[in-house]
């Protein structure tokens, strides 16, 4: 138990953002096996920069001289709280700005969605010489800003409400770990400003059904008291949706797939207990109807106890 607490104490959140065409921001606490203990709070701030100058129009990779490079800045802030040693809850709200380097189209700015997560460590036991843990994570997102979801590629998000369930398995062997996770994301319909739209057929409504999605993740790395280093690969797939037709604009209910690879480094200076610095990056290696995004991020977290209590 002591080992667990120590480790957990030093690893609060690595908030990364998946920002492709849709600029969905996920608080990535839900994607790791790390828990903070009961009555501990982690406050976190994160900045991420996303950019791409190529995108996939359906399966065709192309550039767009009238957009140049699309970029966004994500400022994400939130808290994680240890309800118990096996249950953590978190809430994050990002503020996002988007822009294009060419053409005249105006970018957007504003608060996106509040992202809530409920993370439960269901199993934790010694297997062989390592420790296996299994986690169930329920997440939800609700738009907080009144931004335009139907304004791709500048929209801050899709403006849908979503709920997601994720299963995560982590195996820790000494200071090394491997983890795998699968997530199913259910997305609500959205209301757009237009009163009709064409997908592969005409729709006379301002309601748009967004495809649900899956998100798979594998990660592996090293965790010590001073430093965590991990490599991460993710595969996000919408279950349905349609391709952008030739030289058309993107639309919220497009099929949007992205496979990304990346990494995180977290440094925990021993002088100030509870302080953590994270840097990371990711790169979309293949996709469909999304930008080939490069993300660079940096974050700072502080973990502390809110109750003087010995359990």
């Amino acid at each position, binding site marked *: 138990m002591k080992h667990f607490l120590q480790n957990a104490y030093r690893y609060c959140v690595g908030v990364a953002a998946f920002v492709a065409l849709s600029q969905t921001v996920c608080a990535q606490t839900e994607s790791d096996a790390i828990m903070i203990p009961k009555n501990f709070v982690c406050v976190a701030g994160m900045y991420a920069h996303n950019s791409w100058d190529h995108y996939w129009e359906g399966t065709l990779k192309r550039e767009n001289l009238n957009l140049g490079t699309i970029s966004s800045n994500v400022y994400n802030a939130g808290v994680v709280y240890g309800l118990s040693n096996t249950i953590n809850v978190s809430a994050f709200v990002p503020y996002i700005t988007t822009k294009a380097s060419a053409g005249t*189209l105006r970018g957007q700015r504003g608060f996106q969605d509040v992202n809530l997560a409920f993370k*439960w460590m269901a199993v934790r036991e010694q297997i062989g010489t390592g420790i296996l843990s299994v986690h169930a994570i329920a997440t939800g997102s609700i738009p907080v800003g009144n931004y335009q979801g139907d304004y791709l590629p500048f929209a801050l998000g899709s403006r849908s409400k979503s709920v997601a369930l994720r299963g995560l398995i982590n195996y820790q062997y000494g200071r090394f770990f491997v983890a795998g996770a699968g997530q199913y994301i*259910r997305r*609500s*319909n959205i209301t757009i400003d237009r009163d009709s*739209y064409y997908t592969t057929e*005409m*729709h006379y409504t301002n309601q748009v059904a967004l495809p649900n999605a899956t998100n798979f993740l594998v990660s592996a790395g090293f965790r010590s008291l001073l430093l965590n280093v991990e490599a991460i690969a993710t595969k996000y797939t919408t279950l349905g949706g349609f391709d952008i037709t030739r030289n058309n*604009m993107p639309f919220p209910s497009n099929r949007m797939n992205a496979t990304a690879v990346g990494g995180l480094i977290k440094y925990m200076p021993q002088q100030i207990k509870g302080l953590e610095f994270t840097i990371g990056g990711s790169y979309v290696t293949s996709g469909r109807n999304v930008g080939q995004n490069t993300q660079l991020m940096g974050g700072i977290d502080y973990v502390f106890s809110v109750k003087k209590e010995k359990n």
Partner: protein
Amino acid sequence: MKTRILYTSLMAVALFASSCKKDITERNQELPALTPANPDSTAGSWTPILTGSSTFTVALPEAKTSPNYVADINEIKSYQKNLTSEQKEIIKYWSAGSVLRWNEILRELVSKHNLPPYQNDDGTYPFPNAANPLAYPLFPFSNPPYAARAYAYVSAAQYDALVQTFKYKYNAAYRRKAPYVDDANVQALIPRSALPSYPSENAAVAGATAQMMILLFPGDLDFIQKKVAEEKLYRLMSGANTRSDWDAGESLGKQVANVFLARARADRAGAAAGNKDVWDKFETDAKAAGRTPWISLELPRRPPMLPLFPNVNPILMPAADVVAVRPAAPFKEGSAEYEKDMTEVMAMSDNHDREHERIVAFWADGVGTVTPPGHWNSIAAEEFVKHNWSEVRWARNLALLNMAEMDAAIVCWDTKYFYFNPRPTQMVAGIKTLTGIPNFPSYISGHATFSGAAATVLGYLVPERATEFMAMANEAGMSRLYGGIHYRNDCTVGLATGVKVGTYAVNRGKTDGAN
């Protein structure tokens, strides 16, 4: 603790399963079957658009006792004996109205084809080829002028087809009762109509529309013919028409459409794209006159959209009136009015009012949409369903609207290319727009012109909503200012010019015999 976890988990699963409802009922899905308050049985005497002196051939209907007619009736009975749920859906869909459904289908095709071609490797742009419509770039590129003309020809052909149909329906030699009247064992699965059923009015609409598509959307004839077959099935299954009623109507509709096809092929729209000499001449002429010429802000520079569309033969206005209604020149660069308008555009560029964004998006009707004339068709159709008009009145009213839109396109394009003046974004670097910049000159706004004409016609047809329609038209025009792509003057003058064009349709409506 365990129970709490279990409880919370159950809550989470329940929330997960119940949240994010996906069912969407679209506005056009639950429409009631058309039950005209007035069958407009005298529509055979209404003034046609083009076919007032045309002659058509319609075979005489066979006698009730003939083996062919008996077979026709038996065919209906055999359908009705065993209707599948899918077939019932077909009846429900089409019973809302033939003119309505075909108008929706046309808007769908416009949306599908409203895509500017991607550039060639050398930075030039390919043009769609009507002779090879399925090769990239697909034919047509249904941009607003193309779409306005397509809506007009289809609506006008449908109207004429119905007027001609009514002439036969009430001609003693052709008059035939509906199958559900003639045979007690044929059910009426849609509201009963007092109209004679030979030739079928639905078939005339379908035949005319499909025939027009040979010219307008030649790459989608499979889709069109599937819809024709579906509507035919609907008329048979519902007990409203026999196969021979349908075939006579479809043939008549095609014959009427051929008159419109002949006009459309000769209306000069086919040459509207111009060529490099034409494009360059606009620029040199503007420079010679001491004005800043419009230039494309697209990369690579795209040739201006349909610069010779002003030469298209208008459908309602005398050709000479196109120049007569052309508004006075835009504000001179550097004048006080010009500076005031420019300052306003720059302020709009910085205005993050969410309501402005909504208005811009609602009226944008850009790439991949029904276009502004299509949006007004949508507004019209959703209004018309409330009035229980007959098919022929639907067709006449949409024809008035769409002929006004076609002439509005010609007048607006004439003004745009006559003055060839730049967009605000060309004059001041750094103006940010809330929607894409259309690839043609600024003065006058197409959205404002289309909307002014449409609101004028709709206000005539539905006077109790005239003020509201004009307010919508004004908002549509202003959306282009809010979006940072037009000066206020482009929008206000566009709206006023649109009203003038719409008046031609109103005047026709007053004297076409339908009132």
